[in-house]
């Protein structure tokens, strides 16, 4: 079953045909793959990543989740979110519903600009529009804190990423999908190699998490780093690990990738920020 799926998508990627399988069809294939690989995992549990498929690490994770370090970040994030800019405006003026409970609406395809808009890019756009300097997407800090707070207020809301029926939107989705399945770096791995084909297996000391549910729980408080890590920093980290040159956070490539993986996480609840190793 896995092999057929592999060949099917590989053909699509390699041939790069105009007659794409629809995103809906991709999603069904994707979900079926994981359902077959992990028959005992309930769909809603995929938001918990590797903990949905590994009991021993789940127990430790539950112990940490009882009182997770990221609670400090959520508190900081709330304070930062409510702090007015120099011009007196606040972040709430840039977002619908005053920025509360909206995490699941990102990323979305912006028909006006013809690009994918992510939440963290929107946060920095809000800053730019209000005369403030952008925040870094790396090494934790205020961007990660604000992103964590906004994710936290959205907990329980399900992803329902839409792909409008336009060539541009479809192209963005397909670009994300293509990156996901393309082998890169000295180690010649694709995202799919770990998170579709090897998920559940032991890859040295790690168990790769399943490919659905990834963006539900970011930013993630990584215990190894001792801080929050944003999704795009994590993308960069993964590319570094396979010894590929990473893209810059919030570049078009990563935004398209986030678009693809979030679409694949449709139906799953936002549960960020998450604790991870």
């Amino acid at each position, binding site marked *: 079953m896995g092999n057929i799926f592999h060949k099917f998508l590989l053909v699509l990627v390699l041939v790069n045909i105009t007659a794409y399988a629809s995103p809906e069809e991709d999603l069904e294939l994707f979900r079926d793959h994981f359902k077959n690989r992990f028959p005992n995992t309930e769909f809603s549990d995929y938001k918990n990543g590797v903990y949905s498929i590994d009991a*021993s*690490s789940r*127990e*430790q*994770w539950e*112990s*940490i989740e009882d009182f997770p370090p990221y609670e400090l970040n959520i508190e900081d994030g709330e304070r930062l979110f409510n702090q007015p800019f120099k011009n007196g405006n606040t972040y709430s003026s840039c977002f619908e519903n005053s920025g509360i409970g909206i995490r699941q609406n990102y990323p979305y395809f912006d028909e006006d600009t013809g690009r994918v808009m992510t939440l963290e890019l929107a946060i920095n756009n809000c800053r730019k529009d209000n005369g403030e300097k952008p925040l870094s997407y790396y090494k934790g800090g205020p961007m990660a804190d604000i992103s964590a707070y906004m994710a936290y207020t959205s907990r329980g809301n399900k992803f329902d990423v839409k792909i409008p029926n336009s060539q541009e939107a479809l192209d963005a989705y397909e670009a994300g999908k293509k990156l996901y399945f393309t082998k890169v770096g000295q180690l010649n791995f694709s995202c799919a190699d*770990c998170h579709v084909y090897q998920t559940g297996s032991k*890859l*040295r*000391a*790690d168990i*790769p998490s399943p490919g659905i549910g990834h963006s539900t729980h970011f930013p993630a408080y990584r*215990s*190894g780093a*001792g801080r929050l890590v944003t999704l795009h920093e994590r993308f960069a*980290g*993964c590319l*570094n*690990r396979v010894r590929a040159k990473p893209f810059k956070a919030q570049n078009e490539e990563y935004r398209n990738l986030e678009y693809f993986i979030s679409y694949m996480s449709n139906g799953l609840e936002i549960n960020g920020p998450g604790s991870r*190793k």
Partner: protein
Amino acid sequence: MNRRNFLKNSLMTAATITTFAGLMIKPKRLYAAWPKASFDITELNASINSVYGHNNLDESSEVKLKAPDIAENGAIVPLNVKTKLKNVESIMIFVENNPQPLSSGYNLSSKSVPTVGTRIKMGKTSTVMAAVKSDGKIYTASKEVKVTIGGCGG
């Protein structure tokens, strides 16, 4: 020296003496100072000895140590110690292969319920030992916690 200067000097001297005296009298510590010596020791038996003054330990099933078999990440290893033993004065947690085996110590009071938990850093696979001092005797429970390094996830 005229009278004004003399008075001024006296007052200043008096103030100085009072301040100096105040500094000399340290407030009485309500609790024992941090045991620096114990935390510096790099070998397990010496570490135990520095805490208790001896190495007479009794392994006991009454001490419950909760620790993972394989730590998901050596940076945060959740540990929990509890016991039903009575008159527990202290709980110590030793990690044999850490640079300094004594990770933490908990000095209890008569109001304490003998349960403590924390999260520690472990550099490598090691035996973790919880030591409970009850009625003057030391009871222990140990567990090996594996720490893996070198994942693909980074």
